[in-house]
Every structure is written in structure tokens, then in C-alpha cells.
């Protein structure tokens, strides 16, 4: 019958995609875009989360609600204004420009998540540290961060996946073929290689590998009960 498929395992498609279509370069670009695009928002959001959760300052509530409400804003509405801003700062087509963009897009949710997690830590734990003589920085680095590993791990996975799989932001703000991440390169492959499914699927699989690795690596940090034993019951 006509449905017999010659069945042969081969890695040719992978090698051709990687060497000939610049997939190796794109993989590197994706890394260069994604890793700072994950680390920077988490750093900024964790400082912000600590301040919102545990420090008193005027305008705290208003600022918090304002920042979290920004989750509602659709990315498409920001494309042109942000592009203009980046152009004025000569950051279009540069990696720092795209790091800033991803940080800005990721912060509202990250701040929301970390503020509520930090706020759920027992107040007496922090008071005990203050009485022991810890300054705010000490409390942050030696107490809050170690105890927040589950929240930060989930945020890291979430942000990593979002930035790694992003096409729109890279398309609009990067605009330089040599700096294109994998998403951009694969979408170009579709237009140039149309129905060559073997290349497209191989490329897609390469694009998936890293997030899978990241996910499984960080998954063990989702341990409940990190704070079990600190407080009675």
C-alpha cells in the first residue's frame, strides 16, 4: 500500500539544520538573550518584593497596585512606544536593549509573586533576625533568599520559558539577523523552506531541548516544607 514509510534513524537533518542554517549561532543568541532576561527581572523583583512585603514607606500600597496592574497591559500596545524609547537610547538591535524590554515585561508578575511569597514568611523569623543584629541586607540575603528558593525557582522557570519562546519582542526590538534567537530563525526557515518538515521539526526539537533541561534541573527545588520546622506546628 501507499502508506509504507521507509523507516531509518538518522541525524542528518539535525546536522544540516545546525551547520547550514545558522541554528548553532541562533542557539547561542537565544542563550544570550534568555539568561540575563531571566536573571535580571528576578534580581530586581526580589529586591522590590522584599521592600513591598516588609518595609514601610509612603506610597507603598499605591505603587504596588500600580505595578501589578501592569500585568493587564497587552504587549502589542507597548511595541511602538518602547521601540521609540529604545531608538532614542540607541539600544535598538542590541542585547542590552532586549534585556531591558524583557525585564520590563516580566516585572509586574514577578513582583506580584515574590511580594506575596515574602509576605507569607513568618514575621517572627525576621524579627528574631533583627533582634540578633541583622541589617535589612543581611536579612535579605541570609534569610529571605534561602527560604524563597521554591518561589524563585518557579519564577525562573516561568520567565525562562517565556523569554526563550518569545518571537514578537525579538522581532520588533532586535532587528539584526546576526543576533536573532532561535524563534526568529525557525520562523524564517518556514518561509524559506516551506514544506521541508524534516528540517522544521528538527529545528523545533533543538529549540525545545534547553527548556526541558532547565525545567527538570530546577524541578527538585519545588520542595514543599522548606519552612517546616522553623515555626511550631
Amino acid at each position, binding site marked *: 500500500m501507499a502508506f509504507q514509510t521507509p523507516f531509518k534513524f538518522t541525524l542528518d537533518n539535525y546536522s544540516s539544520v545546525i551547520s547550514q542554517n545558522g541554528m548553532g549561532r541562533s542557539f547561542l543568541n537565544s542563550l544570550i538573550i534568555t539568561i540575563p532576561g531571566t536573571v535580571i527581572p528576578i534580581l530586581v523583583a526580589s529586591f522590590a518584593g522584599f521592600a513591598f512585603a516588609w518595609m514601610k514607606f509612603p506610597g507603598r500600597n499605591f505603587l504596588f497596585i500600580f505595578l501589578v496592574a501592569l500585568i493587564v497591559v497587552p504587549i502589542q500596545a507597548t511595541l511602538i512606544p518602547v521601540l521609540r524609547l529604545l531608538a532614542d537610547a540607541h539600544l535598538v538591535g542590541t542585547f542590552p536593549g532586549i534585556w531591558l524590554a524583557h525585564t520590563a515585561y516580566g516585572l509586574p508578575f514577578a513582583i506580584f509573586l515574590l511580594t506575596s511569597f515574602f509576605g507569607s514568611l513568618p514575621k517572627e523569623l525576621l524579627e528574631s533576625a533583627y533582634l540578633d543584629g541583622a541589617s535589612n541586607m543581611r536579612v535579605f540575603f541570609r*534569610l529571605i533568599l534561602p527560604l524563597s528558593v521554591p518561589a524563585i525557582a518557579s519564577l525562573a522557570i516561568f520567565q525562562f520559558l517565556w523569554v526563550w519562546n518569545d518571537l514578537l519582542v525579538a522581532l520588533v526590538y532586535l532587528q539584526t539577523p546576526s543576533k536573532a534567537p532561535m524563534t526568529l530563525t525557525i520562523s524564517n526557515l518556514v518561509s524559506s523552506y516551506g514544506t521541508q518538515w524534516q528540517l522544521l521539526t528538527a529545528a523545533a526539537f533543538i529549540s525545545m531541548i534547553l527548556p526541558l533541561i532547565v525545567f527538570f534541573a530546577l524541578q527538585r527545588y519545588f520542595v514543599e516544607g522548606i519552612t517546616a520546622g522553623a515555626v511550631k506546628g
Partner: protein
Amino acid sequence: MAEVRFENVNKRFGQTIAVKDFNLEIPDKEFVVLVGPSGCGKTTVLRLLSGLEEPDEGKIYIGQRLINNVPPRDRDIAMVFQSYALYPHMSVHDNMAFGLSLRKTPKPEIERRVKEAARILGIEELLKRKPRQLSGGQRQRVALGRAIVREPAAFLLDEPLSNLDAKLRVQTRAELSKLHQRLGTTFIYVTHDQVEAMTMATVIAVMNKGILQQVGKPQYLYERPVNVFVAGFIGSPAMNFFDVTVKGNQDGLYLDAGTFQVPVPVERDGILHKYLDKKIIFGIRPEDISSPKYIAPGIIASPIRAKVDVTELMGNEFYLHLLTGDTPFLARVDARTEARPGQDIELVFNMAKMHAFDAETEITLSPVDT
């Protein structure tokens, strides 16, 4: 080592007055227990002393130093929280060493203090464990150890026994008393349990609704409560109160409760003459009511009759829940007493231990040192 002094301290949370016109002097080396019902302000007083809250008015001194604006870590106090607040990601050893390492104490000194505290508390084998691997009693000792290594001028303890089971609580009470004797440092201890106050304190301060009611040695508060609140709070089971009228006849004064009358001993009747034909509150403790068959020598016995409502045999004592008319009261009598629910029995009040309070102000009518 230093005394602690509160002068006219006030603290509000929004509209609620948590602590009102609070004046207290705590001499050095005392074990002071702040006791009172929930919401009376005792934990607020402790937090004001620790620096976790700031007073709205008033001054607080440790030694001669005014500490109103001194941050908590510079006040030379150590606090043990009700929930222990151990750092969950650190070992027991690191929990205890944390405060010292923050103050850049040299490592050999840290080790010495941690080992010494662990030895005193009997937790030397637990030094490498994490808090989640410890039992409640062990965690509590680690919390104590963390405070001990700081060698502070005063220990502040916020209801540290409330999360322990009853048996462990009794055991730990004795250990805390011993610890206080051994360390010779001021202990300031907050609890709602008057048994803890009576057994451990050298000085008790009773609070209610933000106001300090009475301060003194446990025995003194027990024998000479300054008002109805302290009289009913200290001592378990609580003192019985009756609304009575002071009356007089040719033998002297007596108290008329309607359903019973009891004579006032001559040595107690001084001020009560001013209340002739007026209503007062008469108080008598359950342990000062006995069965006529088993009276201890040296009491001034006044007989009354009452109806038995419920009986509780405690083993060494018999608690009788009684009714006189509609008024319930409680007596602790000898375990051999015969009493059954529904029965009318004869009892004897020891009027040498009577308490009398003004019906309106609820202040005691017996002489009291302030």
C-alpha cells in the same frame, strides 16, 4: 545586668489603646511575669521593651540608659518567641551562632558560648540537626539557647510554654526556674497562665485591658489582691464572689447574702463599719471552704448550707460545685467528704481569709501595700 523601668508608657494601635499609663520598675535579676487575659497588653509591653514597637508616649530605660530610640539589636536584650522562630535552613549550631557572627564575635568565642549553652540545655547531640528534625521541646531549647549565647542584660520570653504538651510544660517550668537561678539575669516573661506566673515568678505584674493592676510577689498577690480582677485571676480555681450587705447586731458585723449570713471577724471589721447597710462584694477562695468534719486547725469557721450541683474528684481533693440560692460557687474540700449531686450539705467558711471589695470600684477594702 540591669534594672528595667517603664515611665508613663502609652501605646495605641489605631483606635485601640493597647497599653495605658504604664509604670513599672523591675529590679535587676528578678523573674518578672507579666500575666493577664488575652488582649490585656502584656505582649505589647514586651515588644515595646524589645524595640519591635515604639511607644506613643513615655520612656523606657534599661539600666540608666533611655532606650526609646535605640534599635532592637543595640538594646542588649534577647527574645524567645512563642513560635520559637528558628531559622529553618540552618543547623541548630548555626541558629545559635547567627547573632554572634553578625556582631563579628571571634570564632573561638562563638564556639565556646554555643557549646556552653548547649550543655546547660542538654542539646549537645542536636547541634548538627535542622529544626525540622527536632521535637517541640527540643526546638524550644534551641530558641532558649539562641538567647543565652547573647549574654544579654535581660531575657524576654513571649509565652514560650504554650506550644508544649501539658507534661512537658510542667517539666520545663522547673527548668526555666533553675536556668534563671543559674544565669542570674533578669527574666521578663509573658503568659496568660496564672499557674506559670505563680510557680516561676519572683515578681508578678497583672494586667487587664492595657492597665497594670497590681505588682508584687506571688504570695502577696494571692493573699492581698488589690481588686476583684486580680483576686479572681490569681489562684486556681478562682475565688468565689458574692454580693452581700453589711449588717450589724449586738455581736458585731455580719455579711448578709440573702441565702446565708456569715459573721465578720473582729480583726477584719475596721473599714467595714463605714459600709454598714451598704452592699459590698465578698470574696472567699475555694480552698478556704471546708467540710465541717475535716477542718484544719486555726481557722475561724462559719457554717453555711448549700446544695451540691456537680462534684469532681481530683484524687487528693474534692471539688464541689455548689449553689446557694441561684449563686454558684466552688469549694475544695477533703477527698473523704461525702457529697452527691442534689444533696444539701453543711460547709464551713474560713472567715480569717475573707476578702471584701467595694461594690462600685471593685477595689479591696482590706489594707494593701502599694
